[in-house]
C-alpha cells in the first residue's frame, strides 16, 4: 500500500524552491496531500499581518554543544509557541464560532501546553532559559477554520519535532520525558484533525508519524517566531524515520 505523504508549505518562496517542487511531484504522485500553512498565504503580501514579522527580532541561538539541554531548549521554544497560541485562542473564544465541545478540547490543550512550557522552564532554569515572541501572520483568531488549521499544523509539527530530536538525546531520563510529552502532542493532533474532519482517517493520516530534523522544524516554526532562530554546533547527521522526509 502506497504511503500517503504530506508536504508542508510554510512560505510562498518555498513553492519556488527546486527541492519543494520535487517533493510536490513525489507527494502528488502517490496521492498525498499538500498542507499550506497560513504563513504561505500571508507571505504573499495582500493579507493583513498582525504583529512583527517572523525572524525580524534578535537572534536566538541554540547551541548543541550544550548536549541534552539544547534539545530541551528547542522543545521549550516550540512549547512556548504552542502555549501562547492556545492562550490566545482561549482568550478569543467570545468572538469565535467554535462550539462549546471544541472550546473544551482547545481549553484542555491550552492547559497541557502551558504545563509543558512551565515544566521545561523549571527544568532549564535561568542558565538555559529564554523567552520567545510569537507572531501569527495570516491567522484569524475569530475564525474556527483558521484556528483549527493552525492548531493541527502546530501539533503535527510538535510530534515530528520530538520524534526527530530524540536521536540527539543522550540521557535515558530525558528521552523518556520527551516520550511522555510527544504522545500527548499526538493525542492533541488526533483530536484537532477529528474536529476538522470527523469520521475520516484524518486523525492519523500516515502509517508512521513524521520525524523532522531540528533544522527542518526550525524552518517551519520560524514562520511564527519573531526571534531569529539559529543553531550553533548543530548535529551534522540526521537519522531519517520511516517516512524519509525529515
Amino acid at each position, binding site marked *: *500500500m502506497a504511503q500517503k505523504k504530506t508536504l508542508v508549505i510554510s512560505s510562498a518562496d518555498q513553492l519556488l524552491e527546486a527541492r519543494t517542487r520535487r517533493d510536490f511531484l513525489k507527494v502528488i504522485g502517490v496521492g498525498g496531500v499538500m498542507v499550506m500553512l497560513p504563513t504561505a498565504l500571508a507571505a504573499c503580501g495582500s493579507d493583513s499581518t498582525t504583529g512583527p514579522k517572523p525572524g525580524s527580532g534578535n537572534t536566538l541561538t541554540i547551541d548543541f554543544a550544550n548536549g541534552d*539541554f539544547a534539545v530541551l531548549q528547542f522543545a521549550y521554544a516550540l512549547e512556548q509557541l504552542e502555549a501562547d497560541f492556545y492562550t490566545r485562542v482561549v482568550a478569543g473564544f467570545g468572538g469565535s464560532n467554535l462550539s462549546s465541545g471544541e472550546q473544551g478540547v482547545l481549553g*484542555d490543550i*491550552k*492547559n*497541557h501546553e*502551558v*504545563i*509543558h512550557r*512551565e*515544566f521545561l522552564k*523549571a*527544568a*532549564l*532554569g535561568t*542558565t*538555559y532559559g529564554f523567552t520567545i515572541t510569537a507572531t501569527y501572520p495570516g491567522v484569524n483568531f475569530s475564525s474556527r477554520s483558521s484556528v483549527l488549521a493552525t492548531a493541527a499544523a502546530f501539533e503535527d509539527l510538535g*510530534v515530528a519535532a520530538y*520524534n*526527530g530530536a*530524540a*536521536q540527539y*538525546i*543522550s*540521557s*535515558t*531520563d*530525558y*528521552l*523518556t*520525558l520527551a*516520550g*511522555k*510529552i*510527544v*504522545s*500527548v502532542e*499526538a*493525542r*492533541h*493532533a*488526533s*483530536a484537532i484533525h*477529528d474536529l476538522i474532519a470527523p*469520521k*475520516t*482517517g484524518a*486523525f*492519523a493520516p*500516515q*502509517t*508512521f*508519524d*513524521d*520525524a523532522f530534523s531540528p533544522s527542518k522544524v526550525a524552518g517551519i516554526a520560524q514562520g511564527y517566531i519573531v526571534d531569529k532562530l539559529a543553531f550553533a554546533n548543530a548535529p551534522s547527521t540526521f*537519522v*531519517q*524515520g*520511516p*517516512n524519509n522526509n525529515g
Partner: protein
Amino acid sequence: MDQKSLYDTIDPEIMTRVNARQEEISKGASVNSKLAAALALGSIPVALAALTKDVFAQTPSDVLDVLQFALLLEYLESEFYTRGTAASGLIDAADMTIFQTITTHEAAHVAALKSLIMGKSATPNPKPTFDFTAHGAVAFDFQSGQYDTFKALAQAFEDTGVRAYKGQAPRLINDKAVLTAALTIHAVEARHASEVRRLRGLKGWITGNSRDDLPAFTQGIYDGEDNVMQGPVDVSMLSLTASNGGTAAATQAFDEPLTKAQVTAIVMPFIASA
C-alpha cells in the same frame, strides 16, 4: 566511536555487574545527596544531570528484544482490528473508515517490525493464538451488537501500546534508526488512542489513573498515569498549574511509560493458553 560498537567488545558478564552497580548507584545515598545538594543550590539542570544514568545498559540484544516485544503487541492489535473490520454488523457503518484506517496502520506496523528484526539477522517470532475474551473476562466474539465492547477493547489496546513503546524507548537509545522508527509508531498509536477514546465520549487524554468505564481487570493499563513528578519537577505544583487545569491537567499533559513486565501482565490474558 559510537556506544554500540563499544558495547560489542564488552563481556556480557561485566555488563551484568555494571548494571547491578548502576542499580545500586541509582538507589544509593551518594546520588541522593548529590541530588539534594543540587536542589539546595536551586539548580534544577544540575539536579536533572545528577539523575542521569552515568552508565548505559543498552546492548544490541536489547534492541532485538524490544522489536520482538513490540511485534507481539502489534500482532495483537492487527488481528483484533482485522477481524473487527471483517466481522459483519459489528462496527457502525459511520465509523468504518476510522477502524479501517487503524487496521491498515497496525498491519503495516507488523510488517515494519518484522523487516527491522530481519534486518538484524534474526527471525520474527510467530504470531501467538489470541483470546479476545481475556480468558472469559469479556463477553466478546466479534458478533453484531458487541460494538461497545469492541471500542472498549480498542481503547485498552491503544492506551497500552502508547505506554509500552514509551517504556522501551530507553533501551533503544544507542540504535537511532530503530529508536526513530519506534517513536514514529508510538505517536501513531497515541493518535489511535485519542480517536478511539473520543469515539467513546471520553477525552483523548488520560486523567489521573482513571480507566473510566473499562472493567476493573484493565486497571493496570492506567496505574501510574497519575504521576506528577517529571524528573525532579512536581508539575502539579508549578505556579501556573492551578490556573491551568490543576493536577488533573498536569496528569493529562504527560503520558507515563510501562515496564515490559507490566505490559506483559496486561497482555497475557489475551493470549490463548497453550
